[in-house]
Structures are given as C-alpha cells and as structure tokens.
C-alpha cells in the first residue's frame, strides 16, 4: 500500500513539469473561455463585463441552424476522407521507403518533407495563386495548352472541396509519413523474417504484423490529427472565404461557419459560448466513436 502511494507520488513528480505546462497553456484557456461564456464581454462591456448566466448559450442556438448542421456533416465527411487518404497513402509510402537495402530513401524522404517545412499560410497562398487561380494558375495554364477552357477550381462546392482536400493532404502527409516511418523503424525485423519464411506476401505481412505492431505507436498522432483535421480552419478559410478573396464556394466547416456567424461580432462572451459548445460536440463525437471501437 505504502509502496503504491510512493509510486504515484514519484510518477506525478516526474510528470509535473509537463502537466503544469499543459495546465497553463492548454487547460487554463479552456477554463477561461468557459468563464467568459457566462459573461457579456463584448465591445460595449470590454472591461466592465458581468455575469449574464446562460444568455450566450441561448443566443448560440441561433447559430446552430441548418447552415451549422450541414457544416457539421461536411466537417465529418471532410475528416473521414482526409484521414483515410492520409493513413493509406502514408502507410504505403512509408512501407516502400522502408524496403530493405533501398538506397536513396534519405533523399526521397527529405524531398517529401518539403511541404511541411513551409509555414502553412505560405503553402496555401502558393496553391491558391500559383496553382488554382483561373487567370495565371499553373493548372489552368496546362489546361489551356491542352486546348481546354480554364476551370474555376475554387468556385464550385464539389471542386473546391476536392481542392481543399488535396491541399490539406499535401500539408498533412509529411507528418504522417514521418510518424509511420518512425513507427516502422521500431518494428522488430526478426518478425518479418519468420513470416517471409512462412511464405507471407507483402499484404499479409502488412495486415498481420506491421499494422498491429505500429498501431499503438501511431495511435496518439493519428488521434491528434483527427482532431486537427476536424477543426481545420486555415485551409478552407484561406482558399475559399478569406476576406477580399472569396471564391463563391460554400464549403464551410464548423469552425469557418462559427467564425463568420459569431466570431466576427467581437462579442467574446458569445463566441466563447460557441467555442465551448463545439468543444462539447467534439468530445461527444470522440466518446461515441471510442465506445464503438471498444464494442468491436
């Protein structure tokens, strides 16, 4: 008994610096936002704000209209599509890079990391102006050479959704490849040797050995990526609805929707309430999927 509590104490002692940092930079803002969500902090009551109870939450229900619901569905679709593509492509590429005696993997890996080495807004701007622009975007220049009419890639809902997915994939793949690659390195090679002797093909090895072996290692990164994809803002906002450069596509995710329908009001109490509600929705989602996983 005594040993157990000493163990606990020691564990908390070791992890406390990290936990304190998390408490300060991540948990405190959440609590503060929750606190503000019960006040009327806005332009007219910036410093002299007071408690208004659930008023902001009542108002927030107006934002959760049909537009919000379709944004929510779109966000789910967006997350599922992005995650499946990311995981499959990253796994295949990382496996190929890890084929034994394959020279040049360092070069290829470094080259594939380049998209990650640029700040996100730079990459998005490059895609938007350099690739998709209908006047001088590279894609349309090529179409023109093939004798086709220029396409307004970012104008239609479907094509804009695809473009955003491609850009998001481009931005996120390097990280996924790196995580997968690191995980593959940690798999004991001797497992494969016996499997190869047993005559297992690449696919069988992947399913029965590699994936179970790396699942635990990549799980946290994958989960984190799921959340960051879910609350993705930059890609969709900068590509389709940046102020001064809207393209006409309506592919709001929950965050861009909340931004345009609440955050721009400068009403922090109200915006906080919406943030908290989105937080609750997301937690609900993850608990739901978590439970289903367990049942399986």
């Amino acid at each position, binding site marked *: 008994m005594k040993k157990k509590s000493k163990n606990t104490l020691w564990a908390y002692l070791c992890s406390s610096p990290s936990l304190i940092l998390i408490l300060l930079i991540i948990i*405190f*803002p959440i609590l503060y936002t929750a606190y503000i969500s019960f006040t009327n902090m806005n332009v007219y009551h910036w410093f002299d704000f007071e408690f208004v109870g659930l008023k902001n939450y009542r108002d927030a229900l107006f934002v959760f209209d049909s537009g919000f619901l379709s944004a929510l569905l779109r966000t789910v679709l967006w997350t599922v599509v992005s995650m499946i593509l990311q995981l499959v492509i990253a796994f295949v590429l990382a496996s190929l890079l890890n084929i034994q005696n394959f020279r040049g993997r360092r070069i290829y890996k470094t080259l594939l990391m380049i998209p990650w080495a640029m700040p996100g807004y730079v990459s998005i701007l490059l895609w938007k102006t350099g690739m998709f622009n209908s006047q001088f975007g590279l894609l349309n220049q090529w179409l023109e050479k093939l004798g086709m009419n220029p396409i307004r890639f970012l104008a239609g809902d479907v094509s804009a959704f695809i473009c955003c997915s491609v850009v998001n994939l481009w931005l996120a793949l390097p990280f996924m490849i790196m*995580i997968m690659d690191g995980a593959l390195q*940690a798999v004991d090679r001797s497992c494969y040797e016996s499997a190869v002797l047993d005559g297992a093909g690449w696919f069988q090895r992947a399913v029965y050995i590699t994936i179970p072996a790396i699942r635990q290692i990549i799980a946290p990164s994958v989960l984190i990526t799921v959340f960051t994809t879910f609350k993705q803002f930059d890609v969709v906002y900068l590509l389709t609805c940046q102020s001064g450069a809207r393209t006409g596509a309506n592919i709001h995710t929950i965050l861009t929707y909340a931004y345009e329908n609440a955050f721009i009001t400068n009403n922090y109490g109200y915006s906080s309430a919406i943030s908290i509600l989105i937080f609750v929705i997301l937690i609900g989602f993850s608990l739901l999927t978590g439970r289903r996983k367990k049942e399986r």
Partner: protein
Amino acid sequence: MKLKTSKKIRRGAGHVCLHVFFTGLCFLTLIPVLYAVSVSLNAENSLLGSNFRFIPESFTIKNYLAVFTDYPVMLWFKNSMILAAATLALSLTVGVPAAYVFSRRRFAGRNAILKALILLYSFPSVLSMFAIYKLLGPMGLVDNRLGLILIYAGTMAVFALLNMKGYFDSIPQEIEEAASIDGAGSLQLVSRVVMPLARPSILVTAVMILIYVWNEYLFATTFMTGAENYTLAAGLYSLQATEISGSWPVFAAASLVISFPILLVFFAIQRYMTSGLTAGGVKG
C-alpha cells in the same frame, strides 16, 4: 547459386521501379514548390500568360538579394534559432520523463489523464490566444521571449507526451528488467538503456516541435512588438504578398529561404532515425 542471382536481379529491377516511382512522386509533390523556385529566380517577373516554365529563360538572384538586404533576415533567423532551441530544450526536458512515467508506471489517475489529454485537442483554440494573454500579461511575459517559449512548449506538450509514450510502450520492458539485473540504477536505466532505444521517437518529437516553432506566426506577431523581435515566419508573414506590400517573387524567395534550414535539419537527422532496437543496440 543461380537462384540467388535471379533473386538479385529481381530485386534490382524492383528497386529501379521504386526509384522511378519516387522520382515521379517527388516531382508531383513539389510542383507548387518548384513553381515558387521558378518565380523567385525568373528575371522577367512574369506570372501571366501561358509561358510559365519550371526553368526560367533568364535567371536572376535579385529577389534573393532583396530578401537579405531589404529585411533584417539574419536577425529574424537568430530569433527563430533562439526560440526553437529553447523550446526544444524545455519541451524535451519536461516531456521525456513524463512520457516515460506514463508508459512504465501504473498509478492512480493515469488513465484518466491520458484520456483527458487527447480530448483537450478538440478545443477550438481560436480564442485561446486571448486567455493566454490574460495569463501571461500580469507575469510580465508579454513581449518577452520566455512567454513565447512557454506558449510553444505548452502547445506541443500534449503531443510530445503522448507521442513519446507510444514509442516507450513499444519497447519491451524485459530489456530494462535485464539491465537492472545487470546492476543498472534507475537513472542509468533511463538514460543509458531506454533513451537510445527511444531515439527515433525523441527525434520525431523534436522535429515536430522544431517545425511548429519555426513556422508559427500568430503568437509570434501578437506577443512580440517591433520587427526586430520577429521570427522568420513572423517576418515573412508581415511582408506577405498583401495588397499593399506585395511583391510575389520576393515573397516566394523569402519563403524558400526560411524553409531551407528545416530541410537541412531534416536531412541531417535521418541517419539517427533508426531505432537502437534495430540498429544493433540490443543483441541477444
């Protein structure tokens, strides 16, 4: 003998295919980047028309010179370096022990904390900045590098902890048990047995943190005042091709310049990315 050679040929052919595949893939991936390279080197400064080429007809480095002469890039570089190094040091010193403890020890509250940590990621952090400002302001950490370091390390702390814990979990505990039978103390055990084995994970985490700090601009511009305190990403953001300042070729050149150090680091650490486990650290 014959069988072996045919196998070798087959493997050789396979590798050629792989090279072709990866070369193609890299080209495809890098089209936007190559575009930026071409724009930044093109002497004609022309974006229009159907005459874009990856290799411009006439070269110029004046855009790169402009990056270095018109803006305090070296100062920004220094700021980025300081922030990145300090954040890395802080994140890893607090992250590694925490990850190890969460991987190896079973204690009250462990599972709850792990679950909660993941859920924290679902908070839309658009409003966090304001709260962090309220927190750091009274401590005098606004307009102060230390404040930024704390923010960065804190933002990456959850990832660092969970990611490294995942890898620690994959290292069989028997290795440590055997080492402790051999007489290694608990600190020795961690530093000399576990660390080398977990090297890839620590490196992955470190790279992740590095890239985050290197490319972050929102906090860097909001929490720091004065162009002389900017990081590279913040500086680039401030000279971004907006309506008013916009020179697209200079912007392209600048964005390539700032991502170059990251690529160097990335290339350099690759040889250390193989785990101690497979590189002969443990032999039965």
